[in-house]
């Protein structure tokens, strides 16, 4: 299993190579830099995306029905497989309907999921979070916020980074950013 630090470094290096300098991360530009084309495809709700590599052609398929934040995360996740695992082909699912943004932040905050057991999936998710919400970008953003962060702050940050509130919430939690959970 790759260390978190290593994954963060790979994501940061990639952003710098692809000349992405701030949020919201242009994940399509990053994909383009890696010569991967994005193809939105109609698919079952439970299919998130896939990466297919044939010869020098790399295609990332994403579920065209998913919300934009979800699509961005999927692209970043598939790029993780590409960068970290040299995947030839891979399909990614999700189990259930995701809840909508902006609810029950406190409930989410205290939960750490241990459900993902395939190390490559965990790595790809960490890579996706690092790519879309790089620690060094967040450090900059957080200058204009008062800590601990409240729910409204997290929603604003999620909008700034064009990620789901859940993803932002999780990322902040993993980075150890103080978040106000009182009052819930």
């Amino acid at each position, binding site marked *: 299993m790759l260390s978190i630090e290593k994954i963060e470094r790979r994501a940061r290096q990639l952003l710098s190579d692809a000349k992405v300098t701030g949020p919201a991360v242009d994940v399509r530009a990053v994909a383009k830099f890696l010569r991967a084309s994005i193809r939105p495809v109609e698919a*079952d709700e439970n299919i998130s995306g896939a990466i297919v590599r044939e010869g020098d*052609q790399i295609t990332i398929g994403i579920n065209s029905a998913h919300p934009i934040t979800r699509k961005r995360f999927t692209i970043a996740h598939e790029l993780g497989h590409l960068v970290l695992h040299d995947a030839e082909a891979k399909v990614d699912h999700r189990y259930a309907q995701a809840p909508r943004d902006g609810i029950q932040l406190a409930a989410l905050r205290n939960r750490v999921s241990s459900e993902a057991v395939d190390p490559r999936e965990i790595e790809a998710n960490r890579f996706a979070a690092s790519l879309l919400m790089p620690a060094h970008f967040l450090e900059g953003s957080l200058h204009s916020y008062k800590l601990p962060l409240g729910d409204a702050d997290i929603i604003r940050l999620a909008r700034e980074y064009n990620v789901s509130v859940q993803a932002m919430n999780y990322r902040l939690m993993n980075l150890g950013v103080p978040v106000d959970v009182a009052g819930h």
Partner: protein
Amino acid sequence: MLPRLTSANVAAIFFSMPQPVWWKSLNLLVGQRLQRNRHSASPKPLTQQELSERTESTLSRSSIASIERGLQGISLAQLYALAKALNVEPSDLLPSGGEVFATPKEGVEELVRTSSPAVATFLRKVQGTRTKKGGANA
């Protein structure tokens, strides 16, 4: 009202379905061994229903059917329950590591072949109109 967050759908947001490529073959190989042992049971072959009853109904007939088709994995306790019901050693139901890990690399065609129709269709769409290996246009 918005849906409630449960640990299952929290996991669903962030994690994809974990599935190393050999998992599928593991379940299938276990299923095949189970079926072989059921058919060769003495004094006479057992039906799935009879096997289910012999596990003291810890496994339903439909579970046994899914297991045999490799659609469902089994727990350690279920492995022993099945071995007891068939009067064989648990190890008789287990494929060797060599068999399990010898699965071909997860190339596109292999993935299409072993996936559900929905996933296979999705993959074909992702591949798009690109010509396949050995295609007619060469």
